[in-house]
């Protein structure tokens, strides 16, 4: 028997579940097809940074709008998602790095945003007493923060289901076919028919895009994370670095979670990941450089997720170029967690109205076509 719906969403990560929640909230019949279980890959195990700071100009508006949803995340999902707005700071270690921060703040102001500000040494030490003494200041967004990624993804999935969305775990997509004006999604166990299909398949989104005729150059990202034993409270904000690959925060439990984009390896097909300890050592060095007290802290666990990365590190959010009724939301390239709530709303707008008032210009697939054309024109293509 074929299940009829208004929208079929491929992928039960944060973006898929968020789209399901927003669509269900607006009275649409939604089915989410999740090959494993909700939050299995990157959505459940990323660094959990809720960050508007230091975004690409193409993302700033969307990200800032997204904070409105984070501030009422409990109302939206029925769970506080362990969200804390303790701020995010991007630390500068040298005057040259601090000068870059000043440029950045000026650039963001020119775009009309006020959320990013520069802080100097004294303010940095007041907010982060454990920071290494040589650090000179940094970039701060005071009401950025962090949340628990798995809990958040599940909260979105649960609320979507409570609003009537059907979340089918253990249901992988096998094929996507035209059926009149509709799409027929053929799963491992069932068939699902709807006029709209949302591609939120994360690291596997390229395969789904290919099924409808959109070619996207997607790579796999396997950003490594590690966590220490519990430590006494010494840090509230989330810390990043201007000059190093680092994201550093202390969880509610007291453990310190360290990431920042050092890469392990991942196999999309077997869904297995491996830690690269030579690279992870780089994260350890960065953490110790900014927080000397971490030298003797004991690392208990490390892991990496599987996530899609586009060539320009920006997500693909918008309608398919090749086919009607397909909406893409993928390729978040390691910084999609904060965008999850708002992008679900964008997808709902696109599914219902075919357009959105939220700022997504520059995130559609068109840009790759344009880039390819420009590249050829400038003679830097192949």
């Amino acid at each position, binding site marked *: 028997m074929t299940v009829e719906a208004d929208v079929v969403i491929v992928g039960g990560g944060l973006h898929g579940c968020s789209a399901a929640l927003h669509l269900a909230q607006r009275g649409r019949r939604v089915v989410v097809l999740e090959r494993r279980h909700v939050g299995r890959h990157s959505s459940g195990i990323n660094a959990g940074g809720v960050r508007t700071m230091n975004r690409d100009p193409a993302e700033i508006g969307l990200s800032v709008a997204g904070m409105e949803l984070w501030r009422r995340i409990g109302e939206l999902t029925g769970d506080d998602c362990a969200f804390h707005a303790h701020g995010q700071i991007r630390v500068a270690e040298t005057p040259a790095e601090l000068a870059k921060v000043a440029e950045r703040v000026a650039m963001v102001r020119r775009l009309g945003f006020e959320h990013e500000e520069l802080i100097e040494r004294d303010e940095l030490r007041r907010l982060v007493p454990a920071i290494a003494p040589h650090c000179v200041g940094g970039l701060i967004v005071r009401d950025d923060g962090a949340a628990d990624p798995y809990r958040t993804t599940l909260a979105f999935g649960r609320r979507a289901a409570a609003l009537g969305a059907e979340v089918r775990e253990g249901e992988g997509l096998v094929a996507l076919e035209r059926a009149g004006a509709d799409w027929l999604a053929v799963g491992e166990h069932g068939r699902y028919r709807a006029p709209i299909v949302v591609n939120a398949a994360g690291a596997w989104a390229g395969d789904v895009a290919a099924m409808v005729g959109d070619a996207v150059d997607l790579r796999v990202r396997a950003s490594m994370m590690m966590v220490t034993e519990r430590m*006494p409270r010494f840090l509230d904000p989330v810390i990043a670095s201007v000059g190093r690959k680092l994201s550093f925060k202390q969880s509610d439990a007291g453990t310190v979670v360290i990431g920042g984009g050092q890469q392990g390896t991942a196999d999309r097909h077997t869904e297995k990941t491996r830690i690269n300890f030579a690279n992870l050592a780089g994260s350890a060095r960065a953490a110790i450089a900014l927080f000397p*007290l971490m*030298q003797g802290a004991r690392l208990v666990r490390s892991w990496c997720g599987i996530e899609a990365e586009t060539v320009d590190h920006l997500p693909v959010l918008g309608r398919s170029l090749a086919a009607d009724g397909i909406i893409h939301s993928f390729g978040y390239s390691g910084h999609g967690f904060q965008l999850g709530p708002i992008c679900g709303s964008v997808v709902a707008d696109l599914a219902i109205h075919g357009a959105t008032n939220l700022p997504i210009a520059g995130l559609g697939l068109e840009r790759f076509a344009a880039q390819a054309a420009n590249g050829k024109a400038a003679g830097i293509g192949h």
Partner: protein
Amino acid sequence: MFRKLPDPACATVAVTVDGQAMRVATHETAASAALLAAMGATRTSPVNGEPRAPFCMMGVCYDCLMVIDGVPSRQACLVPVRDGMRIERQAGARALAFGSAETADV
């Protein structure tokens, strides 16, 4: 809880267990010395402060984490004693040292 079988030939070293000076056999571990000192809890849980003591004696359970010669979170059952060793109870989460001894020595 435990006592040693008499072994007159056995060489000993001097250690302190939570400040109490004692001589123990050279082949003791910090954990077995702590058991002989009958100190009861050798740490408290970082989660809820419950008292804990060595459980498995083979490096598996991590309930014997102690501060040894000033270094926190060491598995006492895997650390052989040596002369002058300071073996101390670990209270809750490991201590922090802001840019001091810990970063310098370890």
